[in-house]
C-alpha cells in the first residue's frame, strides 16, 4: 500500500519552560492509502493532538511529518492551507455545518477555493456527492431541518468535495444512534476501499469493527493494537 502520511519521531509538548506538558513522544508511523484506521486511547491521551498534527492544524515540537513525501516543516502556512484544502477532509463529532447555509451550500463551501473547476463543474460535483449520500431531496434544507445522521452525511460530502486522499474524523459517530452510526461507518469503509486513507479517532466498538488497523495511544506513543499484543 502507498504511504500517504509518514510520521517520524514526533514529539508534542504544550507550554513553555518548566510549565510544560508532554503529550506525544516518539511517534513514528506510516499511514497508507486505502486503509481505515481507528485511533483510540484514554481521555487526555493525545488523540486529538495527533489528529490536529495530522490535519496540519498544529505543528509538532519535534520530529517530521511527510504528506505525499513532502516535508511539512519546510512549507509555509499558505501551503499548509492548500494541503488542507486539497488533500485532507475533516469530519467532526458535532458536524459543524454552517447553520445559515443549505446542505448544498455547505458542501460547496470548500470548493470556493478551487479555481481549477468551472462553476458548473462545482455544482455538478456537489449534487453528485449529495446524491451518493442519499441526500438529493435535502439539498435545499438547512442543517436544523436535517436529522443528526443526515447532517453528518452532509459533513462527509463536504469533506469529500475536493476529492482528498485523507479523511480525518474525530468521533464522527459520537452523536448518532446505532442505525446512523452503522450507516456512516459503511460510507467511510467504502471510501477506504476506494483508496482513501481514513483516520478515525473513536472509542466506539463499532468503529473498531470496521477499521482495518486499530491504533492506540499509550504512554504518549502510538501503537498498532496487534503489534501491542
Amino acid at each position, binding site marked *: 500500500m502507498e504511504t500517504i502520511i509518514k510520521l517520524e519521531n514526533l514529539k508534542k509538548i504544550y507550554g513553555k519552560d518548566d510549565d510544560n506538558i508532554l503529550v506525544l513522544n516518539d511517534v513514528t508511523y506510516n499511514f497508507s492509502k486505502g486503509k481505515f484506521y481507528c485511533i483510540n486511547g484514554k481521555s487526555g491521551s493525545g488523540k*486529538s493532538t495527533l*489528529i*490536529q*498534527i495530522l*490535519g496540519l*492544524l*498544529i505543528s509538532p515540537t519535534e520530529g517530521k511529518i511527510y504528506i505525499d513525501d513532502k516535508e511539512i516543516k519546510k512549507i509555509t*502556512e*499558505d501551503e499548509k*492551507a*492548500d*494541503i*488542507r*484544502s*486539497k488533500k*485532507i477532509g*475533516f469530519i*467532526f463529532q*458535532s458536524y*459543524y455545518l*454552517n447553520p*445559515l*447555509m443549505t446542505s448544498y*451550500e455547505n458542501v460547496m*463551501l*470548500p470548493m*470556493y*477555493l478551487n479555481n481549477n473547476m468551472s462553476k458548473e463543474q462545482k455544482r455538478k460535483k456537489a449534487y453528485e456527492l449529495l446524491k451518493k449520500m442519499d441526500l438529493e431531496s435535502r439539498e435545499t434544507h438547512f442543517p436544523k431541518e436535517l436529522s443528526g445522521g443526515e447532517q453528518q452525511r452532509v459533513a462527509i460530502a*463536504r469533506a469529500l468535495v*475536493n476529492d482528498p486522499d485523507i479523511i480525518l474524523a*474525530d468521533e464522527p459517530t459520537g452523536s448518532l444512534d446505532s442505525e446512523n452510526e452503522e450507516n456512516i461507518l459503511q460510507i467511510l469503509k467504502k471510501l477506504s476501499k476506494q483508496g482513501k486513507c481514513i483516520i478515525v479517532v473513536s472509542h466506539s466498538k463499532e468503529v473498531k469493527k470496521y477499521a482495518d488497523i486499530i491504533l492506540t495511544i499509550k504512554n504518549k506513543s502510538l501503537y498498532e493494537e496487534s503489534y501491542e499484543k
Partner: protein
Amino acid sequence: MKNSVYLSLGYLLRNKKMFVCFIIMGLIMSIIIIFSSFNSSAQNNIKEAAFENPLFNRLIAVPNVNPTNENEIKEMKESIEKLDNVKSAFRNYEYYNYLNISSFKTKDLEGGISLYVANNKTLPEIVSGHNFPDENGNYLICPQNFYPTNVDFRRKEINSSMKIDLENKLGKTFEYKYKSIKNNKEYKLNFELVGLYKNSKYSIDEDVCYTTEKVMNDLYFNTNDNIEKIDLSFDEYKSFYVYVDKYENVERVTENLKKMNFTVSSAAHIDTDFFKEIITNTTLFVVLIYIVTIIFLIVILIYQFNYDEKYYRLLFYLGYRKKQLYIMYFLNTIFKILISFISVFIFSIIMKFSLLHYLKIKPFIFYKWKVIINYTPLVLLFFIIVLISVLSTIICIKEIDKMEGDIL
C-alpha cells in the same frame, strides 16, 4: 475576492440575529437624528425667533421728565440714536397702524395689513426688489409669503392656495383710502411696493408690511385731524420705540437709556432660558444615546466575534488561508456598517420629506419653525462605529492569526 464578497454578504444577510442588530442600530441612529435635529431646529428657531426677530430687539423708552416742546423731543430722539448699538428710534404714535387695502382683498382674505414704521437701517433683509429708495417716499415692503389677514386668528381656515404672490406686483402702486375722524374727509395714499422680505427668517407674521416715517406720520395726523393741540405729556407723543442692533445688546441699551432718565420696557419678551433648558436636555439625551450605542456596539461585536469565530475556524479547517479569513471578516464588518447606514440614511430622507410635506399642510404653513435634519451626529457616530469595527477586526485578525487546531 468575488467568493469572499459572496460568502461575507451571504453570511451576513442570512443571519437573522444580525438583522435584529441592524434594526436596533437603525433605531438608535434614528433617535440620534431625531433628537439632534430637534436640537438644531430649536437652536435655529430660537435664533430666528428671539435674536433675529426685530420685535424682541425693541424697547419702549418713556422720558421721566415731560418734554415741553417738539424740539426737546427731537433732541431726545437724536441722543437716543447716538447711543451705541441703537439702530434707530421712532415716535410711539408713528410705530404701528392696521390698514385694509382693497387691492389686497380676495374672496378669502380681507386685505388687512399690519403696517410698521421702518427706515433702511431697521428693515429686514430684502430678498426681492430693494429697500426704500427714499426715506421720505410712499413705499411699502411686504413679506414674500403674504397673507393680508390676521393670521393669528385664522390659522386653521387658511391654506397655501390663498397666498398672494407679490413677486409680480413689485414696482406697482396700491391705493389706500381713509377718512379723518373729525370731518370724514377722505384721504388717498398711494404706496409703491418696492421690496419683499422673508418673514419666516425672522419669525414675523405674514401680514406685516413696512413703510416710511413720512407715511406713518401722514396716516396718523390725517386720521386724527381733530387734535387741536398735542399734549406732550401723553406717552403716545413723548415715548419712543428704540431699535437695538442685536438681542444680546438689549440689556446694555436699556441701562444706558435708564441713565438718560428714561423708563424702559421691552416691546416683547421671550423666555430664552426655557429654550436653552430644552436644548441642554436634548443634548444630554443625545450624549446618553451615544454612550448606549457604544456599549451596544461593543456587546454586539463581542457576541459576533464569539459567534463568528466558529465559522472562521471551520473555514480555516477547510483550507481557507488566513489572509482570506481577514478579508472576509473585514468585508463582513464593512457590509454591516454599510447596511446600517444605508437603512438609516433612507429612513432619514423619508423622515425629512414626510416632515417637510407635513409642514406644508395647513395650519403648519404659518409655523415658521424650520425642520433641520442634523446629520453631524450621524457622521460622528459613523466614525465611532468604524473605529470600533476596525478595533474589533484587529482583535479578530489577531485571534485568526493565533488560530490553530483546537477541535471544533
